[in-house]
């Protein structure tokens, strides 16, 4: 999967045609073979753009930044990224006519060791769902697989699970990198930063981590597209996908196989209902 040449050509053409002001892609980080996001405004820099299986980040996160706001943007999206972009379009955060989207029929990205990452192994929709032109051959939808970690956790006992998650919350340093790296967390004022309860929530304690991570994952439930930008950003390498995948599993299983951001105009599982939703747990 190497589309560097095609993306450079398309970006150069868009700049000469005057269709875009900014191009958001990937470039090499200059130290090793890993890549970093590149926000390009100068057409001369187009030759630095690359796209290989090391292009891990979700670039739709950069649409909420100041350097792309109210500008015409060219953007590279993989399957999962395009789903989050679809949600941003539905939630009126970006305008479709200001975007030129290069979709990728993704074959999965790899980690530092060259191994395919877990969310690509379990990927359901590898092709971009919203695009102006698509690179690669679309492979279509795959079957839903329940995450292996969630399966393993569900077999453990209550006490064991509690201990496991308590350790996760203790290791959290409350840097909010997960929230800031999430393309769907665009509120200017977040409820987990509320001022009235700084005695609990402002500090770096496991209590505040419990509050922040749980609230964050529940506010993303039914919208999370499993791009795992949060996990890549986490300095403590916490397994944040556990919280999101659990919600995704419950939502897919109970609410008519709902998957976030696949259909245009779909705002998420919590914005609609069915009369047949399970309520046997309610007294």
């Amino acid at each position: 999967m190497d589309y560097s040449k095609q993306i450079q050509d398309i970006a150069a053409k868009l700049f000469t045609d005057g269709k875009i002001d900014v191009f958001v892609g990937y470039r090499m980080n200059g130290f090793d073979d890993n890549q970093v996001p590149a926000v390009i405004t100068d057409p001369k820099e187009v030759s630095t753009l690359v796209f290989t299986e090391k292009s891990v980040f979700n670039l739709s996160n950069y649409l909420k930044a100041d350097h792309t706001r109210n500008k015409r943007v060219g953007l590279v999206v993989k399957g999962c990224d395009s789903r989050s972009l679809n949600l941003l379009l539905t939630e009126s955060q970006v305008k479709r006519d200001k975007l030129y989207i290069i979709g990728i029929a993704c074959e999965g990205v790899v980690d530092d060791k060259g191994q395919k990452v877990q969310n690509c192994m379990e990927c359901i929709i590898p092709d971009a769902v919203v695009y102006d032109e698509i690179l690669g051959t679309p492979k279509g939808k795959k079957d839903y697989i329940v995450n292996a970690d969630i399966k393993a956790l569900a077999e453990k006992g209550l006490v064991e699970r509690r201990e496991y998650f308590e350790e996760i919350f203790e290791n959290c340093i409350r840097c909010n990198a997960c929230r800031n790296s999430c393309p769907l967390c665009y509120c200017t004022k977040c409820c987990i930063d509320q001022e009235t309860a700084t005695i609990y929530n402002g500090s770096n304690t496991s209590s505040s981590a419990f509050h922040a991570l749980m609230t964050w994952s529940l506010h993303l439930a039914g919208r999370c597209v499993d791009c795992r930008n949060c996990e890549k950003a986490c300095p403590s390498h916490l397994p944040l996908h556990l919280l999101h995948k659990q919600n995704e599993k419950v939502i897919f299983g109970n609410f008519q196989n709902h998957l976030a951001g696949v259909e245009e105009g779909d705002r998420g599982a919590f914005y609609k209902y069915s009369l047949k939703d399970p309520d046997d747990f309610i007294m």
Partner: protein
Amino acid sequence: MEAEVKDKIVSIEKPELVAPPDWKPVIMGILCNWCSYAGSDLTGTSRMQYPPNIRIIRVPCSSRVDPWFIIKALQTTADGVLISGCHPGDCHYISGNYYARRRFLVTKELLKMVGFHEHRVQYSWVSAAEGAKFAQVVKKVTEDVVKLGPLHLYKKENFSK
């Protein structure tokens, strides 16, 4: 009528924690204005007894209950949470409780995975005419939470001894 606490109650999620002898469970009740709150009012005016461990908060509709409220209650003081709204189809705002029902299921399953007993957070539909049912529900929730023991959710940092 207050829930009786026998000696040596341990937290079910953290068996090394033993409740102090004077421990009484605190339950946060979030009730919808139109059905459950009126139902609890009827319980009172009918002179039916129910445990006083519940602290009631009134909200306009059960769909006003953000999962955040539950997390915050568990984080700070509550040992259990009871959320109650109108029966499906009876919502004052026509479909509020259908939306709420989806969120409740996801919240319940997530808390279960993170290591909370499923009886910590309970849900019920209570209409304005069901005063007796409300008393029963509160009694059941209180008994369940007494069996589970104190939550002790990282409280040691916030309220140091």
